[in-house]
């Protein structure tokens, strides 16, 4: 009954489903089992998006609230929104850019406020400059893969996914594969530097 439950979150259009697909294919390449539950349709239009990735001995598509082991999020607000799906103490890799919902007259919390509230609940927040770093690497849409690289470095995924499998999955499933592989490696490197400090 070994399993790893990953919550992916963000805003429609940020590449969450692509990220899930890369992870799933990497699990396949690594010889494992995987289930990915996606949100399609209306919510893609700039709405809040969550994708459930379940790896290992699992049957059902959705991670129950309080059962996720890890989150990768491309937006801090969405990270906070879907943190209910995580176990206490889980790691949350989140991009540092907030995309404000385009609703007139609403109050947007700051990154610090969000991080603080999550840390208070005992989560292990890693704020990642994924979008910025992906841009630097000439692949502004690669933030999702940068986050994957960063989280991979921590080792939490290693038991289920080989690094070569990720490289292979990127190659087979993404446009501009070489650029994305580069971004993945930068993500890893960033984490190595940042997290071992």
């Amino acid at each position, binding site marked *: 009954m070994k399993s790893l439950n990953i919550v992916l979150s963000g805003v429609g259009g940020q590449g969450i489903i692509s990220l899930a697909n890369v992870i799933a294919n990497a699990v396949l390449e690594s010889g494992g089992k995987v289930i990915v539950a996606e949100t*399609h349709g209306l919510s893609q239009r700039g709405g809040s998006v969550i994708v459930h990735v379940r790896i290992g*001995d699992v*049957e059902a*598509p*959705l991670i129950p*609230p309080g059962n996720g082991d890890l989150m990768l999020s491309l937006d801090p607000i969405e990270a906070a929104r879907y943190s209910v799906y995580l176990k206490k103490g889980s790691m949350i890799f989140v991009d540092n850019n907030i995309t404000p919902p385009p*609703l*007139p007259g609403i109050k947007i919390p700051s990154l610090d406020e969000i991080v603080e509230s999550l840390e208070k609940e005992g*989560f292990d927040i890693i704020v990642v400059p994924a979008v910025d770093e992906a841009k630097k690497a000439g692949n502004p849409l690669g933030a999702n893969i940068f986050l994957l690289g960063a989280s991979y470095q921590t080792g939490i995924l290693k038991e289920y996914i080989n690094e070569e499998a990720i490289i292979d999955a990127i190659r087979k499933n993404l446009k501009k594969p070489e650029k994305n592989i580069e971004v993945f490696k930068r993500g890893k490197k960033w984490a190595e530097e940042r997290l071992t400090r």
Partner: protein
Amino acid sequence: MAHREVLAEPGSRVVMLGNVAFARGALEYGVSFASAYPGTPSTEITEALSYASRILGGPYVEWSANEKVALEAAIGAALTGIPALASMKHVGVNVAADPLFSSAYMGVEGALVIVSADDPGMWSSQNEQDNRWYGIHAYIPVVEPAGAQEAKTAIIEAFKLSEKWKHPVILRTTTRVSHTRVIVEAGEIDIAKIKRKGTFVKNPEKYTLVPVHARRLREELVEKWEKISNDLSQNQVLNHAEGNPDSETLVVAIGLGYRYAKEILAAHGLLDNVRLLKLSAPVPLPKSLLLNEAEGREKIIFVEEGDPVIETLSKALFYDYNVRAEIYGKGTGHLKKTGELELHHVEKLLAKALELEKTYFSHAMIKPDIKLPPRPPVLCPGCPYRAVFYALRRAVGKARIRPIYNGDIGCYSLGVNPPFQMQDTIVEMGGSIGLANGMAHAQDDKVPIAIIGDSTFFHAGLPGLANAVYNRSPMLVVVLDNRTTAMTGHQPHPGIGVTARGVEGTELSIVDAAKGLGVEYVKVIDAFNIAEGEKEFYEALEYVKKERKPALIVAKGACILLALAAGRRIGVYPIVYRVDDDKCTACGLCYKAFNCPAIYSKDDGKAYINELLCTGCGECAQICPFDAFEPVDEVPPEWLRLMREAKPT
């Protein structure tokens, strides 16, 4: 979307969306005809088949005008002796209900599988309805796969069942089956099979439902139903029991319910303790299997997605056969009846029934103490609908009428949110014109304005429009023509002239259709031109007030995502806009009243444009009273053309 993995090498293992696995299964079975109208969560089945058809030259695949036409076409195809598939979302079955009922009387020659993609939890739907009731009501068997893991097998079994009984079969999937990706092993595809044509052999005693035939067919149908029930009791692929045969507890796990039950029982180490009955073909109720498994149990637990359909039928059966067990399910109040199931709901049910103390999936939820803004889906930056809503609202003000905005199903339903709030009713496909018809005659202090998309117009708008002309309903109809079925992912439709197989189709004109149906006042406007829109809407409203007849305006402008995609293909890109800080007065009109998601307010209230989000539509430049917006470079005319004319491939 192409979903290329649908054509994975035989023998290979690939990650596939449940819907793509359905398409693959249909191909492996040898489906030769597939029709559909797009609708979440069903769309990808036909997208994948469309891709396959373009590569392999078969099967015949079409996007039909609506689900009724799609099902009728599939019935027609099946009567020629080939296997046919009609795919739709759950509410699409409502649209197709009339041929659905008839199909059970007529039967089929080849095979006919009707996909009903239900959407518990309403991820992208106006309601939640459990279409297994249709199976019971219409006497059509229902196959309900146990998760995406079983998608491919289940659709193949559904086809076999249909072929064997010469009877239509409903394949009921749900969002979490259709939109879940799992690893699937690809089998062989026989290309000759999927490309084959049928031949129609006349048999009016079966195919013409005049009363004298239908009465006989009804008798046969009721008899057949019992036989299919027996058959389903024997179908070990779809329906089987596992675990301890002598357990005092039976878990009846229907469709996806099986995955929930199995994972929970495994976590609690109970897989070998209780008896687990997997039902992936629950309608007609496989009575003998169920009775056999129920006999002597003390507790029977039902796990099913939707209404307590199988639980209810089973209890009625148990009553007749004196099965006396304690029942736990939705009908008994032990499981919630709304929304979709999750592991913790099912664990709670099992914990109650089995008196479990420990739980594995029902952890306390951690909610960070921070107020988060909602993030509903919004009209994209550059969406032509934003410009139309803006222009329409101004025209309504100028015409001094009180409007009723009868909305419809499509991206424009997002106009319900602030700042526009210009969708007063959203009922179902075509409901805009239909409700406006009633309101036009039932009250006279407000003017109904029906707002309907291009794909929806051809799907369900035509009879309503004919009605408005015939019964002279004073109303304005606004057709938002963005050159595609946008919300479901940019499928073509009759107004586009591109077919699902990529071969040329004929492009219908909304203007001609409206005029052909007798609308006397028909105009086309450029959706991106706000001043023109305001003027034309105003004049149309004046016409409605004066003539007490319907007027129709087609607001034409491509979905900006289509335009961007078309531009990428030919190397044409939009020029983003920027704000001239000297001119901006911080009035906020652009980011409040117009509410483009690419425009933000700076701390001083002045606007700035997020250039990653800006699509260069130029709408902001039109609405700013101070001319503060300007393109950063010259806008290529080719881009302006794409904004008006892009369409799906």
